[in-house]
């Protein structure tokens, strides 16, 4: 599909020539690693003599920064669409590439490619600092650890995709950021208060952030509210719905 390849090339050019992208890229990686480092250093050594006998689930500490860094990933995603509408550049874009689904697909591809690299850097960097501070081997040494690391990378990419979808739906950066931020962060707060076990389970299973972070679990898997990949799948579902809805709206709406 030559025209799709061209469109992706154009989207990549747009991304790399936007100054805010550079800031967001640096920030998303930097913040994730910094916060992970903070958690790693703050962990009581008595709780965690070796990685295998750690009372805390290692990825939840080592990769904690994901919970904060995701904010910048979502902004990146929202901006990719929000900028077009805010500057009315969407007109130029659709003039150059009139097939609307191609435009959406191209943006999706570009955002996924960029955030995949950034997520890899952020997560790998976090894991490396965890290993370095604790003096353990750098590479994850069990299948479940690899799953947590890889899953966290995918988590961040999905967050950006979610942002892209919402940005296209609301056509405004500020509103999009606000909506996705609340979607993500409200549920964990709610969890603290809601004691009703049925509701707790629902929140942990079906809200994007809680479910998505289930992929970081390597211990007590039977006791977790949702299986790791399944949890990530819930987040993927949210992102998919957002993108599909966005694609439909971009295709059918007038560019006003």
């Amino acid at each position: 599909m030559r025209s799709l390849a061209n469109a992706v090339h154009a989207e990549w050019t747009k991304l790399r020539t936007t100054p805010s992208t550079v800031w967001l890229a640096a920030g998303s990686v930097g913040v994730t690693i910094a916060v992970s480092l903070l958690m790693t250093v703050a962990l009581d050594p008595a709780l965690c003599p070796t990685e295998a006998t750690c009372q805390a689930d290692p990825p939840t500490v080592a990769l904690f920064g994901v919970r904060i860094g995701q904010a910048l990933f979502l902004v990146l995603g929202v901006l990719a669409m929000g900028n077009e509408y805010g500057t009315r550049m969407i007109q130029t874009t659709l003039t150059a590439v009139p097939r609307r689904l191609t435009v959406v697909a191209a943006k999706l591809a570009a955002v996924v490619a960029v955030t995949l690299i950034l997520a890899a850097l952020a997560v790998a960097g976090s894991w490396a600092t965890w290993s370095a501070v604790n003096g353990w081997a750098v590479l994850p040494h069990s299948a479940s650890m690899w799953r947590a690391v890889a899953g966290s990378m995918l988590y961040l990419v999905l967050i950006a995709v979610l942002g892209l979808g919402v940005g296209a739906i609301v056509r405004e950066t500020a509103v999009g950021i606000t909506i996705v931020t609340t979607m993500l962060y409200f549920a964990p707060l709610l969890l603290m208060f809601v004691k009703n076990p049925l509701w707790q389970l629902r929140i942990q299973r079906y809200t994007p952030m809680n479910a998505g972070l289930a992929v970081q679990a390597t211990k007590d898997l039977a006791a977790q509210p949702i299986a790791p990949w399944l949890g990530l799948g819930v987040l993927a579902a949210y992102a998919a719905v957002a993108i599909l809805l966005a694609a439909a709206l971009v295709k059918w709406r007038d560019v006003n």
Partner: protein
Amino acid sequence: MPSIEVRGLRKCYGRTVAVDGLTFTAKPGEVTGFVGPNGAGKSTTMRLVLGLDSADAGQALVDGHAYRRLRHPLTHVGALLDASAIHPARRARDHLLWLVHSNGLPRRRVDEVLELVGLAPAAGRRAGGFSLGMKQRLGIAAALLGDPPVLMLDEPVNGLDPEGIVWVRRLLRSFAAEGRAVLVSSHLMSELEDTAGHVVVIGRGRLLADTSVADLLAAASGDRVDVLTSQRTEAMTVLANAGATVSASDEESLTVQGLPGERVAALLTDANIPFSELRRHRASLEEAYMELTRSSIEFGAVS
């Protein structure tokens, strides 16, 4: 050679009818002026041609195809609708760069069009810092990237200095001379006068005229004579007494309707009123347009 064809185009926004059964063609080899007052539906028509909005009825075709079906559309049509539809933080060159990427055009086109519009020195600056005129040039540059056979420009001389206006006119005429189809919209008649060979006039979304400029002017001019005289008041009296309708068009000339030119000369000579010029009245596009839109309800299309 390709053209822009609009057939029975209709578009409503809510209860407002923006475009109502519009049909015309912008042919290759000439500059077609697209005129109408603000809000007449010019921009809407262009947006419908580009597929940015979808028409409620009718078709808008470029080179016989709907815009959305075109592959590498920038090589078919170069369009400038809104010069400020750019990302302000992006450099001008980068703006053109992603456009060439999007249509698989060679990279050198960026520098070529920048040279053409005279923006080469400013290429590395952020587009947000451009003046209105520079943004227009950037928009024109973008339209020219694909070297398209069809150009569609919405008010391209907006914000340009006189030198720039002359340059645009020359550019458009040369494009037409090369056999391209050029559709230029404006609400200022004067700038189209020297440029356009064909004109499409719309008012309130409807077609008012679709004719060559010469024919339009001739129809508007009618049977009128212009007289240049320093004694206008006296001349007016004499001519009016002879049954003519006289109006003053500027400081020194009168426009006389209802009397042949030779009769006017004879009357003035007999009355000893000096005059220096006597010629057939040449309506300006402005006047033609005023007349058209004033009687837009009764008038059918002049063809």
